[in-house]
C-alpha cells in the first residue's frame, strides 16, 4: 500500500511537470519574442580626400581646392 501511494505520488509529480513544460513551450512558440538583427554589411575603410596642404580642407573647399586669399580675394582656389 505504501509503495502504491509513493508510485502514484511520483507519477503525479512527473505528469504535472510535463504538462507545465508543454504549456510553457506552447506559450513561447505563439509569442515569439526573438529579435532578428540584420547582419551588418562589412563597411570598408572611409576615404577622406585631402586638400592641397594634406589636411581635410576648410571652408567647404573640396578635394583639389584650397581656401586662400587670391586674385579674387578669399575663396576656394584650385591647387
Amino acid at each position, binding site marked *: 500500500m505504501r509503495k502504491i501511494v509513493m508510485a502514484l505520488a511520483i507519477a503525479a509529480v512527473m505528469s504535472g511537470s510535463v504538462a507545465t513544460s508543454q504549456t510553457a513551450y506552447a506559450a513561447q512558440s505563439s509569442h515569439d519574442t526573438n529579435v532578428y538583427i540584420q547582419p551588418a554589411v562589412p563597411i570598408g575603410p572611409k576615404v577622406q580626400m585631402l586638400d592641397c596642404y594634406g589636411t581635410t580642407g576648410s571652408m567647404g573647399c573640396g578635394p583639389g581646392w584650397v581656401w586662400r*586669399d587670391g*586674385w*579674387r*580675394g578669399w575663396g576656394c582656389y584650385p591647387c
Partner: protein
Amino acid sequence: MKARTMAGGFAAAAVMTVGVAVGGFGYAAAAPGDFSTLPVDPNLITDSLAYNAAPSVFNPNGRPGVETVYIHRDGSRQITSTILVLPDAKAASAALDGAKAELAGKVANSKTQPAAVGSGGTMLTGMSPDGSKSVTVLSFAEGNTATTLEFDGAAEDPAPSDLVLELGHKQDTAIRDWQAS
C-alpha cells in the same frame, strides 16, 4: 531806372538760357574730360575688399585719359588700369598698337592670344624681364578709347584668365556707358 532794371533782367535771362543750351541739364552725365568714373574697380568681381585703389592719375604721360592702380591687400598682386580717350577710333587703334609694341619689350616669354573684349582685344601673358613676377595684359579698343589692364602677381601665381576677361568685359561695358552718357 525801371527800364534799366528790366534790361538787366532780360540780360540775365539770356545768359541763363545760353548757359542751359550749352551745358544742358545733364547732371548725371560725365562732363567732357571727366574720366573719374571710367575705371572699373576690381572689387566688383572679388570678395569686395581685396583691392585698395591708389589715387587715379589723370592724363598719364600727357595723354588724355586716366590710370588707376589697384593693390591687393596682401601686397602681392596689382592691377593697373589705363584708359586713353582719343579724338577718334583711328587714333585709339593706333594707340593700342603702340601699347602692344611697348608691352612686347616689357614682358619676357610672352604669349599673345585674341580676347573677345571690345575691338582688337588681345591678352598677353608672360613674365617680368627679371623673372620675378607674372604679367598678364589685356588690351582692347572701344570707339575712341584704348584700354590696357595689366595684372602683376607672383611668378607662380599668374592672374587667372577668367578673371582677366571678366574685368575686361566690365571695363568695356563701363566705357560704352560712359560714351553714351
